[in-house]
């Protein structure tokens, strides 16, 4: 549905080179999927989205939306924003304050190329508003809606033209935490029901993990890793991705051996660890072993036949309700872990930490 090939966008900032906000990005969004661009602030997510929307003219590459080539540097094609079959929701919602709720949603129908009769407009607007549960608010001024309602209004406006593609730029970031959680769910439900191809931009990993079919993690203008939520979370391919999504522990070391099953051993300052080794790493490579806090097991007795058990001491422990957040001190490294609150420990207690080999990954340092 959306195909982006080798997209480049350079902003003019007065310097000769300019700012390369997007650096040869390529990806494909299949029909009906929910695709997320995830990355830290300033990595070029919005820029990518705006290039697809046509609000920004790219400097290289090709963009195809619903089979139509809307931008191509080689063929010098550029379809203006208003001719692209795209609906978009902005971070600030961009609700027009001089129009009523009804007129806001009716606008795309009124300015469209083909004429829509008034009765048809009425029908479509009502349907769109009901879809987002804003039925009955037609005659209000748009500014008299709450933040969450404005957000849904923006969504209704983007959908009323029945676009082929929906673009969303951090649509939830202006809502408070509770509402954000609910909207996350509702947005995803709506997308499933309408089966509309959606490109979503966010810097919030929870949003990305919980809503997407596919996530592309971006870093300074390039895609660092693309995959399903489980892939990027459980099998990060770089230190950046491991760090950016969820919290991780890192143990620097050196590969000793690599087996045939992609498992191998790494020597760290606190002992040897058996772990998965990323493809391409050879014995002798400098690596970091990453392991999620919730993967670690803390034992009060030394477990008998487990691999990767290290001597440790409890550092700080904090009761957070859902779990116990505690740090364990190895000889040289400190690990953060999440444990069940039934674990009875005190600062300074000697313990044994188990790092399950399947959940440890050696990544290039």
């Amino acid at each position, binding site marked *: 549905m959306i195909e982006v090939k080798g997209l480049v966008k350079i902003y003019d900032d007065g310097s000769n080179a300019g700012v390369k906000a997007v650096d040869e990005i390529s990806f494909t969004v299949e029909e009906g999927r929910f695709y997320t661009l995830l990355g830290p602030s300033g990595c070029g997510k919005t820029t990518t989205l705006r290039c697809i929307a046509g609000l920004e003219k790219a400097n290289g590459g090709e963009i195809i939306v619903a089979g139509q080539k809307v931008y191509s540097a080689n063929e010098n094609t550029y379809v*203006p*924003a*208003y*001719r692209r079959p795209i609906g978009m929701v902005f971070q600030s919602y*961009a609700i*027009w304050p001089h129009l009523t709720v009804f007129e806001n949603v009716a*606008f*795309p129908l009124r*300015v469209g190329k083909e004429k829509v009769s008034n009765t048809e407009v009425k029908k479509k607007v009502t349907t769109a508003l009901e879809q987002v549960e804003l039925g009955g608010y037609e005659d209000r001024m748009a500014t008299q809606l709450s933040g969450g309602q404005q957000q849904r209004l923006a969504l209704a406006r983007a959908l009323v*033209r029945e676009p082929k593609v929906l673009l969303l730029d951090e649509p939830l970031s202006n809502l408070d935490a509770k509402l954000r959680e609910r909207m996350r769910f509702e947005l995803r439900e709506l997308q499933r029901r309408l089966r509309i191809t959606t490109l979503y931009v966010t810097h919030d990993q929870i949003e990305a993990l919980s809503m997407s079919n596919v996530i592309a993690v971006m870093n300074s203008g390039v895609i660092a890793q693309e995959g399903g939520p489980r892939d990027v979370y459980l099998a990060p391919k770089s230190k950046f991705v491991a760090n950016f999504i969820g919290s991780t522990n890192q143990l620097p070391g050196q590969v000793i051996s690599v087996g045939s099953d992609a498992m191998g051993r790494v020597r760290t300052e606190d002992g040897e660890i058996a772990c998965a080794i990323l493809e391409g790493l050879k014995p002798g490579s400098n690596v970091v072993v990453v392991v999620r806090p919730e993967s670690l097991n803390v034992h009060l007795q030394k477990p008998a036949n487990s691999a990767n058990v290290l001597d440790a001491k409890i550092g700080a422990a904090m009761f957070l309700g859902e779990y116990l957040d505690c740090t364990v001190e190895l000889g040289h490294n400190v690990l953060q872990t999440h444990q069940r609150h039934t674990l009875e420990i005190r600062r300074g207690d000697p313990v044994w930490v188990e790092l399950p080999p399947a959940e440890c990954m050696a990544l290039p340092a």
Partner: protein
Amino acid sequence: MSTVAIPTTAKQSSTLDPALLVPVVGAGILIYLAVLPLFMLVMGSFQAEVAPREFVYTLKNYQNAYASPHTYSTFVNSLIFAGGSAVMTFLFGTTLAWLTERTNTPLRSLFVPIAVIPLILPGVLESIAWIFLLSPKFGYVNVWLMHLFGLQSAPFNVFSLPGMIWVHSVGQVPLAFLMMTAAFKSMDPSLEESAMMSGANTWQTFKRITLRLLAPTAGSVLLILFVRTLESFETPALIGIPARIYVYTSEIFLAFNEYPPDYGRGGALAVGLLLLSSFGVWLYTRATKEGKKFQTVTGKAFRPRQFDLGPWRWAGFAFLMVYFIFVVLLPFLVLFWASFLPFFAAPSWSALDKLSLDNYRYLSTFRPFWEAMKNSIILSTLTATVAMVLTSLVAWIVYKSKLRGAWILDVLAFIPITIPGIVMGMALILLYVAFPIPIYGTIWVLLIAYVTRFIPYGMRASSGSILQIHSELEEAAAASGASWWETFKRVTLPLLRPGFVAGWIYICIVSFREFSTSVLLATGESRVLSILLFTMFEQGQVTIVAAIGVLMIVTLLTVVGIFYKLTGKVGIQT
């Protein structure tokens, strides 16, 4: 224990609570400054002097003022002058703001400071400079164009309604420019982008979104320009009166300048103008309130969406250059040039020989010039200081004191904005001509007039910074045992400084160039520079006038510069 915890008991025990005294005194001062003159004006407009010092109540003044054959033409002239200027100023200001703010015109950011330069050119000088340029007899532009194209008659005549509109407009453009720039800046570009994403093309977006969103602001800018033109007297005095094109303000001036002066008729005309401008201000406040509704929620700074003008950006650049050279620079140049001439002559090789410093040499020993210079400097600095101190206090009471009825002070401080300069002059004449303390004819009556007129500007500057001060800061000071005055002096006042400095500089500039009030109140000893310019120009000493103008601009820049330096240093020390 300290005095902090027991303000209520203190109130009961002492009859003179200072915390209550201040607002009462403040209200007293404001009533005295803003309300009393208006009261005298209205009274005076209904009185006629039947015998020396003997008055009767009558409607004759209104009959004289509004039933004369002039009335209709004055009304129409005023309307055309004010309406035409408002539209022209608006178009210029909006175009400049749009080009510099929302397009990719080359070097656009360079033109932002350039566009406000005309602010330092007093209205009287603006008019004089354009007479030099566009007079049908000797105006440079006319002479050149006639020479260039072999024309028989001058293509432009500044002594006409279009001429008045042109001259007044170019002086007002900075105001429109600043207001429209703010409007463009505060507009969320995604409002336009989301229209594009809804399938609206550039023109539909402009028509259905951009224009509609700007409409309330545009409306109030037009309104304020209209009212200000209606109230202005510089162009009507220097161009209108010689051309026998009379507007409201000139009628008031002429009633006063008759012999004997007809205060009654002048008062009646002034009341009419006052009502008109009050109505305008009322509409304006309503329109701005409407406009506020349109302001969208986010308070963040937007990255403005810039229109790619394509090759047209060079047309935009050409427009900016032409504007800069012909509208901003030319008036300054012509004044500068003329100030070295013994008599007015077109720039030519022969005129080049006649250039000399004679005008400046003459001025160096010309007493009235030094008197006026002294008066202008004293008045502008003193006005700025008094107005800012007063409005700081008032703004503090209004926004911070939590006293019941404090809003009344706010209303009182807003009244002067509705009073046209010449109406203020008229009202103060009526008040002080027979005042027990003989201040009429001195610069003190001018000080009163200026302070009163510029209180609203001071209020805007002061309240802006006062609202940013958190009450906790002051409460912390009070809790540490500081008295009310100590708190105000040591905590509040320093925090007010940025607003104070900005307000001071602005009031200093507008006082220095003030003309329409002074023209009635400044006589003989109390003459200020703008009035000296006016009288000497009427007497035909035009090249000396140009020299005075040059010195006036230099002085204004120096005063502002010194103040800026001084306060800047103080700011660093504390």
